[in-house]
């Protein structure tokens, strides 16, 4: 299997102006990104990645290399970043302790901060703010618990959750959405 660049749209030639030489230093300061510079491109992560096996575009080694090179926009705008299943196989097997899955998580966090947030995450965040639960659990299911002999579900405390999350960057995406809903 050949190693592709992360997304089909990314197969275009790289222009020198695309490199951000300081990007890697930004990443190694972030929690989970510390190991980035230690990668020596052995390919263990990609060869053991279950997603890479079934995807033509997703290659963790390529993502790590692109991050080292500073191809910031290409990575952050690439949809393939969201394919990682967070199975942590790469993290456990990387001979250099790069914590590959965490580096990818750091990149996703940055993509989100730059406005690229798949809808499902916004929906889950909104639901957590409203009820504590990541999914809207239908009333019917909550009522059914009793007939199945299950105790009532513990309640979330939306007001307290909001208070604790004050100042968290990601909140601005959710606040916008809940305003729209009102």
């Amino acid at each position: 299997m050949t190693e592709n660049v992360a997304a089909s749209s990314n197969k275009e030639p790289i222009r020198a102006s695309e490199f951000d030489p300081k990007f890697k230093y930004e990443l190694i300061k972030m929690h989970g990104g510390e190991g980035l510079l230690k990668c020596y491109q052995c390919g263990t992560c990609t060869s053991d990645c279950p997603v890479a096996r079934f995807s033509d575009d997703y290659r963790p080694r390529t993502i790590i290399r692109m991050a080292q090179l500073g191809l910031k926009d290409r990575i952050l705008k690439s949809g393939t970043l969201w394919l990682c299943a967070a199975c942590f196989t790469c993290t456990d097997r990387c001979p250099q302790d790069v914590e590959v899955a965490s580096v990818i998580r750091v990149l996703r966090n940055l993509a989100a901060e730059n406005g690229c947030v798949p809808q499902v995450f916004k929906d889950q965040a909104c639901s957590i703010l409203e009820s504590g639960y990541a999914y809207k659990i239908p009333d019917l299911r909550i009522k059914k618990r009793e007939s199945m002999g299950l105790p009532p579900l513990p309640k979330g405390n939306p007001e307290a959750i909001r208070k604790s999350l004050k100042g968290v960057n990601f909140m601005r995406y959710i606040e916008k959405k809940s305003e729209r809903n009102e």
Partner: protein
Amino acid sequence: MSNNSKYLIFLGCAVPYRVSAYEISARKVLAKLGVELVEMPEFNCCGLPLDPVSHEMMLVLASRNLAVAEKTGLNILTLCPGCAGTLKKVTKILKDDKALREKINAQLKESGLEFKGTVVTKHIMQVLMEDVGVDNIKKSVVKPLTMLKVAEHVGCHLLRPKEYIGFDNPEDPQTLKKLIEATGATCLDYIDETECCGAPSVGVSDKVALQLARDKLNHVKMVDAQALITICAFCHIMFDTNELRIEKMFNEAYGIPILHYPQLLGLALGMKPDELAFNELRVDTSKLLKQINEGAN
């Protein structure tokens, strides 16, 4: 039998949303084996689903739960490996990093909470292994399932990353196997046992997700397992809810029932399939149950 263990049960979001059979069977077997459960006084999502978009938000959500639990003086038992992994990881991160802990505690203070790091989190599999123990389970078995040959799927978040989970061997896990064998059943080895079920890719690329699950089902079928045993809400949904879809899509025929481990254990402890919510399962289990009944006669 009593072993005096008492835990706060942390249900998570996926279990009450979609997988009541897991909760019902887990509560029944834990009660029978002397593990007492207390409900969480207050709950919010452990934070894991939002980690990809905001690590910070995940840290706050997880630590809120840990702080709520601390007030009760009890440790946490989870049904979901994702919740267990997250709560364990955040406990370690915040204990090791004082600056981060202070930052998070400043956030929690607003709602009268504080993370001190006194709570231990265990997944149900770990509680069954460490608190109850294989010998006690064996002693409680009244209907040994010796006629069964099954396969197990532990799931990623109970194994990796090993630095935070620190339980079992992620490359060759034994815990679930031993627990299955405690019921009298044989647990078969198969190719790529520790591989991901694909669930986290659902919604991003269903194609990748279903191919991963198909790969696993193929390997399980290859060794003629009569059932696949899971101990995770997401893995169970991935296999049980999607088995028929995968069969159609890839022109396969599996017919492999997917059981929550507590359902298997419950049968061995003498409980009836109805009590263990077998009717909630999608893949037909009637043949399997018949094999069990005939084998036990």
